[in-house]
Structure formats: C-alpha cells, structure tokens
C-alpha cells in the first residue's frame, strides 16, 4: 500500500486549522454584531464600555460563562442532558468542511491547493445529512431537562425541522440542477464568469441573477432562518412563550455551547447561501488569476459575502416579529414547498430549452 503523503496531510491540517479558527471566532464577533446591530436598529448605544466600541464585550461574556456554576436539574436524564449541547455543536462544525472558500491555485511545488477541507462528490447531501442531525441536540436537550417548557421547545423544533428541511432541500435542488453536480466546487465553478441578460446588462453568472432561480433563493433563504432557529422562526426557544425553550435549564458552559452552535449554524447557512446563489468565492466582473493573489482576493470576496448575509440574519431578527405557530407550518407546507417544486420545473424547462 502507498504511504502517507505528509505534505498533503500538512496542507489538510492547515486548512482545518484555518476553517476551525474562523468558525470558533464567529461566535464572539457575531454576538458583538448582534448586540451593536440591535442597538443601532433600536436607536440606543449598546455595549460600549469594554474595549473600543465594546469589542471585548463578548470575551467578558465568555469569561462569565466559564465562571458560572454548572447546574444539573434533579429530575434530568443526566447522560442525555450532558451530551445534548455537544450534539448541537457537531453538525455546526462539520458541515462547513465541504464548502469551498477560495479559488484553487498552484503552489510553488506544482501542487494544487484547493481551499476546501473535504472535496467529496456528494457535498451538498453531506451538508443536509449532518444538518439534519442538528435537531437532535435541541430535542434531546428539551426532553432531558424534564421541564415542560423545554419539552415544548423540543417538540416544536422537531416539527419545524421536518417541515422546513423539505423546502430547503428542494430549493437547493434547483441550484444543483444548473450545476449538474452535487459537489459544491462544481456549483461555484458554474457560477464564475458573467452573462448578458436580455442583451442589455452584463451580470455575473450567479444563480441569484438567473431569471429562473429567484424563487428558489427566497425559499432557501427563509427556510435557512427556520433551519437555524432564528427569528422570525425561533419557536424552539420563543422567550415570550416558553421562558427560554429547550435551553431553559441550561447554565454555564453548556448554555454557551448552545449559543455557539446557533451562531456557527448561522455562519454555515450563510456560507451555503453564498455558495449556492451568490457565486461562492467568485468576484463579479473579474477573472481571478490562478495564483495566490487570486486566491487571497477570492477568499476576501467569500468572507465579505458571508458577512453580508450574516448581517441580514441580524437585521431580520431585530425587524420582523415572531410568527404564530400555525402560520409557520402553513408557510412551510403550503407556500414554500409548492414554490420550491414549481421552481424545479421552471429550471428544468430553462435547461431543456437551453437557456441555462
């Protein structure tokens, strides 16, 4: 058998380190953005005492979480109660592995550096598979806490996940049909370059600008809010109705883990939206060279897109109130599911006519 390619292993470790470092830093940054953003929207200063512009507030919060007492409810199922926060974190951390985050370029030794941890040919299926495991963290936490509010949070989360995963997957199918592949690398490559719409305007060949795809984008983006349990779909924790939902009984670092997994899931979802509909690392109207310059620029472009979508997440949270529960279900089953299916038909028609 062949030996281990140490350079390859080193590059993989480097990629994992970069992505993991970015993902772990998403939480403190996003907490700060969320608090300052909400203050901006509600016309108040927000946290501004710890460090410049309150930038170190998140680290102070993290320190507080570590120092707090870790409570264990008496009637809780101890094993499930303890592993539930970890279960929430695993899908949030693993799904990012198949998302490409920059243009591949040739290293000095003639080796191709692909900025993606695992370039598997079932990429998007792997994301959906792992993301669907994320609901177990919430359901387990809700059930194991032996608290009625937590249980309701868990029940709601499970119903919501089943409903919106369908719409999410079907909306992604449209983007995959255009690329003709399940691999996210191919999806991004398909979106590089530009096209001329109606002989008038030259647009980047991103899926969002395609006349056939805007419905899929709406379905995917809104279902993404439901999938990551963000307002206006945060029924699992609905603080006005269920105290704090599934994490009512959690404290200290276990609670912090739920917090982290929520923001990491948000970051992954933003990366997915950017990859499927906004051309991933593609820079509009610019042909990136296959060198480290092109790589660096494409990474910056990808990060900028993800950051913009993350800000939309925050913006929506502080703008749109929570839906009623039956409205959530009706929206998922009667609006988004048919929309996603219709969009698949439209895209198939476009492909059959040779327009895409």
């Amino acid at each position, binding site marked *: *058998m*062949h030996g*281990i390619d140490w350079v390859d292993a080193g590059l993989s470790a480097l990629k994992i380190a970069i992505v993991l470092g970015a993902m772990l830093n998403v939480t403190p940054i996003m907490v700060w953005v969320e608090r300052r953003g909400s203050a901006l929207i509600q016309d108040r200063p927000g946290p501004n005492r710890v460090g410049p512009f309150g930038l170190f507030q998140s680290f102070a919060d993290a320190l507080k979480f570590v120092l707090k007492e870790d409570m264990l409810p008496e009637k809780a*199922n101890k094993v*499930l109660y303890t592993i539930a926060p970890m279960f929430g974190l695993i899908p949030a951390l693993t799904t990012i592995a198949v998302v490409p985050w920059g243009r591949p370029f040739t290293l000095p030794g003639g080796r191709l550096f692909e900025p993606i941890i695992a370039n*598997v*040919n*079932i990429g998007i*299926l*792997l994301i*959906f*598979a*792992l993301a*669907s*495991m994320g*609901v*177990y963290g919430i*359901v*387990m936490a*809700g*059930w194991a806490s032996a608290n*009625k509010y937590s*249980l*309701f949070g*868990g*029940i709601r989360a*499970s*119903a919501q*996940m*089943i409903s919106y*995963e369908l719409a999410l*997957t079907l909306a992604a199918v449209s983007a995959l049909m255009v690329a003709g592949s*399940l691999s996210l690398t191919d999806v991004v490559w398909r979106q590089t370059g530009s096209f001329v719409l109606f002989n008038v305007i030259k647009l980047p060949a991103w899926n969002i600008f395609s006349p056939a795809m805007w419905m899929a984008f709406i379905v995917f983006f809104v279902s993404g809010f439901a999938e990551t349990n963000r307002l206006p779909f945060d029924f699992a924790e609905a603080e006005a109705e269920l105290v704090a939902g599934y994490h009512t009984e959690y404290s200290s670092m276990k609670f912090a883990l739920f917090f982290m997994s929520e923001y990491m899931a948000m970051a992954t979802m933003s990366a997915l939206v950017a990859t499927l509909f906004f051309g991933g690392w593609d820079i509009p109207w610019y042909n990136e060279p296959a060198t480290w310059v092109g790589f660096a620029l494409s990474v910056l472009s990808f990060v900028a897109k993800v950051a913009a979508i993350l800000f939309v997440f925050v913006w929506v949270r502080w703008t749109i109130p929570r839906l009623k*529960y*039956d409205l959530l*279900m*009706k929206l998922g*089953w009667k609006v988004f599911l048919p929309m996603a299916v219709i969009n698949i038909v439209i895209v198939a028609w476009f492909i059959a006519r040779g327009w895409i």
Partner: protein
Amino acid sequence: MAQFVPFAVFFFFAAVAVIFAAAVVLHRNPVVGALSLVASFFALAVMYVLLEAPFLAALQVIVYAGAIMVLFLFVIMLLNLQHQEEPRTRPVQQFLGYTSSAAFGLALIYYLAKFGVTQLPDGPFVSDARTVGIKMFESYIFPFEMVSILLLAAIVGALLLSGRTGTSVLPAPSTATLDDQDTRPALHSEVESR
C-alpha cells in the same frame, strides 16, 4: 498499516450498531430507544460508506436519521409516552421470544458463514448519484412512479387517521389541517399526566 483502518472502522461501527439496536429492545423508555435507533442508523450509514455507496449513506442519514426518526420522536414526545409504564411481558412470551429469535439468528449466521462468498470482483464499484439516477429513470421508472403514488396515499391516509374526530371512522368535513390538530393532543396528555 493503512489497510487495517477500514477493518477497525467496521468493527467499531458494527459494535455501535449492535449495542444501540439492543438498547432499543431492552430500554424501557421509548425516547431513549428512539435516540439509540438514530445512533444505530448512523452506524449503518458508515457501513454504506465502507460498501462504496456514499450516496446511499447520505440518503440513509437524511431519510432515516433526519426525517423518520424525528417523526418518531415527535410522536413519542407529543403523546407524552415516557410517563406511561409499559406492562411487563409475560415470562413465557419473553422466554419464547428470546429463544426463538436467538435460534433464528444463529441459523441465519450459520448459513451465511457456511455459504459465504469471499471473492470480490475486480475494479471499483461505481455507485455515485449519476449512475444510480440514470438506472432509476431508465429501468425503474414505473416502480418510481408507483412509489410516488404510494407516498401520496400515505400522506392522505396519515391526515385522515390522525384527525381528532371521536369515534366516527371518517372525519367530519372540517377545515382542520395538520398543524392545529397536532397541538391539541399534547395539551390534552399534559393535563392528564399531572
């Protein structure tokens, strides 16, 4: 050394699959049983990867672990079943059940081991989404359409069966939909368990 890795993975996940499957049968609490079954299904997905069918492994996790088992958990928690004591099975039935299934299993394993095929064909097994999809829509298009009709029938049947209509077999013509039926039994059983 690298060629032993698949064997180690196989044995680890085979053990996970068997242990958690046994937990489904032996644990009295249906919620723990359902979560164990999820772990078992996940281990089976790893088996599919070892069998060079990663596409099917992803489907296994999405469909079984991600959808069907969430539905099971939803129903168990909705009916609040964890507070219901399951009556003990009669010892005779238990004895007969264990011995007969053990005999059945031993017979199965005996014959599998006796007539086991060990020679694998050469070349890689191509089982990516493209191959499976082309085969599906060329050779199996009729069963595929039948399955879609079956799923539609299942949706209608499930809606009809779970409607809360008292004793009548057919539900009254109401505008009730899945969502507003589903919240009521939870409250109902909630009150009863207090």
